[in-house]
């Protein structure tokens, strides 16, 4: 049942001009950076800045909107003998997967054409971009389902984006300033792992020789993320950031009186 619903939702999303715009945007930015910027590091950094801000923003905005736009569809489906989990699953995956595919194609095609797609920085960038898509659509879905009013939901989603994308780093800086006299390496690793956007940024930056710029702290990070524990912890963090909002959204969805 879920696959039929999923197919329907995907077809609906594919018709959206936003998805086409999203794909075109990533393709244009990637091509532009690869064409005009000298040096792989600069291209990846430029692209990384776009990916880290835009994917979460697009996901929270489009995800929240999508829930509200499909209220009638959901209500109709709920009158049918269809289980709630499969409706929720189809809605979440039906919007997250096309956006993920659009991102992969948008970045992937120009980078294949320029022959850099299989370098470590681009692989890391595409991988973390996919993870961020899943994470932030999950968060958007939870917000969209939990908050009834469309404007409030949008506001909350936007705030969350601001929190993860900007404010969190301010807090890290605050902590760094406040505890400047203490060894902060493990604490900062903890804080970085706690935020999917920061985690994605560090993973991408460690794939090229930027780590050397970061001196001792960079060396500590490289050592941590180079180990199996580091890889497992960061994967786990991204997985939890997807699963917890998905579960919360799913619970809310199942209990909600539509």
């Amino acid at each position, binding site marked *: 049942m879920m696959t039929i619903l999923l197919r329907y939702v995907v077809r609906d999303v594919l018709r959206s001009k936003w998805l086409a715009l999203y794909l075109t945007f990533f393709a244009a930015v990637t091509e532009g950076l690869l064409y005009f910027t000298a*040096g792989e590091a600069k291209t990846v950094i430029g692209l990384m800045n776009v990916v880290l801000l835009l994917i979460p923003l697009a996901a929270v905005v489009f995800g929240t909107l999508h829930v509200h736009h499909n209220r009638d569809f959901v209500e109709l489906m709920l009158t049918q003998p269809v289980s709630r989990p499969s409706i929720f699953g189809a809605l979440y995956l039906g919007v997250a997967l096309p956006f993920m595919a659009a991102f992969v194609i948008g970045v992937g095609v120009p980078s294949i054409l320029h022959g850099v797609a299989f370098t470590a920085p681009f692989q890391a960038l595409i991988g973390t971009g996919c993870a961020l898509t899943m994470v932030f659509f999950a968060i958007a879905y939870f917000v969209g389902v939990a908050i009834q009013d469309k404007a409030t939901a949008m506001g909350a989603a936007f705030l969350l984006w601001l929190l993860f994308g900007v404010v969190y*780093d301010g807090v890290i*800086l605050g902590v760094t300033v406040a505890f400047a006299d203490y060894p*902060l390496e493990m604490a900062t690793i903890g804080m970085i792992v706690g935020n999917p956007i920061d985690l994605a940024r560090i993973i991408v930056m460690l794939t090229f020789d930027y780590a050397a710029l970061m*001196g001792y702290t*960079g060396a500590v990070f490289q050592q941590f993320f180079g180990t199996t524990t580091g890889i497992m912890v960061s994967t786990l963090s991204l997985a939890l950031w997807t699963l917890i909002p998905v579960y919360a959204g799913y619970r809310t969805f199942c209990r909600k009186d539509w």
Partner: protein
Amino acid sequence: MHRAYPGGENTLRHLLSVAANGDTIRVMPGVHRGHTFDIRTSITLLGQPGAVIDAASTGSSILLVNADDVAIRNLTIRNVAVSYVDDNAAIKVIQRQRVAITNCRIENGFFAIYLSKSSNCRVTGNTIIGTERDESNSGNGIHAWTCRDILVSDNSVSGHRDGIYFEFMRHGTVMRNHSWRNARYGLHFMFSDSCSYKTNTFEYNGAGVAVMYSKWIEMFDNNFQHNWGPTSYGLLLKDITDGHLRGNRFVHNSVAIHGEQASRILMHNNTFVRNGYGLRILGGCELNTITNNAFDGNTFDVTTGTRESNNLFRENYWSAYDGYDLDRDGYGDVPYHPVRLYALLVEQMPSAVILMHTAFITILDLTERIIPTMTPETLVDSKPLMRPSTMQP
């Protein structure tokens, strides 16, 4: 004219003991085994193609120059014994004058060419290839201690601790050398006043070039590139006064110039491209003049640890400059502050470096640029160039 053969009666050792001042010894093709060849008269030692002196990593130094006016040319010398007590070298010159070492090839020398308390010597056109060991287990490529008027030019040095090492030198000249893949520094200057180095290339060294505790150093037209690593830099200036840097290129170093206690230095027409830090001027760097340089695509153009700065920045090109030039005189109309707030934060709290390339930091830098509160007000280029000046040495 003598001919030294690997075997028979006329061995190199025998001829060295009978040669008179002004004689020439031709070292004939073949492997001449042994070490501690003592040169006691003013002779010319001329290697024929295929002539090799091999110490097989035993004994002490290989050629000992104990006379003035000795010339050593075209020889291949290899396998110096490693010692932690003696500075064994392929060619060792102690308290001598006018010794010329030219076009030799030295392989696996512990120290390769070692000059001590000597003057008016020339080391030119040699190829020196060490066995890459770690810092504490290797010697220097060209080592000069307490010397005067030494010319080191056109050599290629790799695989040693320091490629070229000067200590207590006066009037040393280092030109057109290629010093690369050395464990510590490409070039290391200590307490060596009035020296100059020009048109050398230093790359892939452990930590680039260190110039310390010296005055009146001229550094012209050198290439410092690919000195990349957490503790690496292109050029370290420590306790340097009255130096002159002109026309040097710094490409892809984690820190291009790291200055501590560097004062009264004139720095102009240098290029800083794709470095992590362009100019890192820390405590006690005063009264430096930085003009007509190009800073292009460095992560941090200039960093400093203090709010105060009495260094003069003027007429440099900054790729990060976003001002305008309405009167079209080639200079931006808005002064440029090259120190970002974030650079200052990182200098004071190194672990803040993990926030590199975050939106928060971008916003912070932007705010600081509009309302400066923390970055040094006096560290400003009041007349930034709109395009890089054409390099005129």
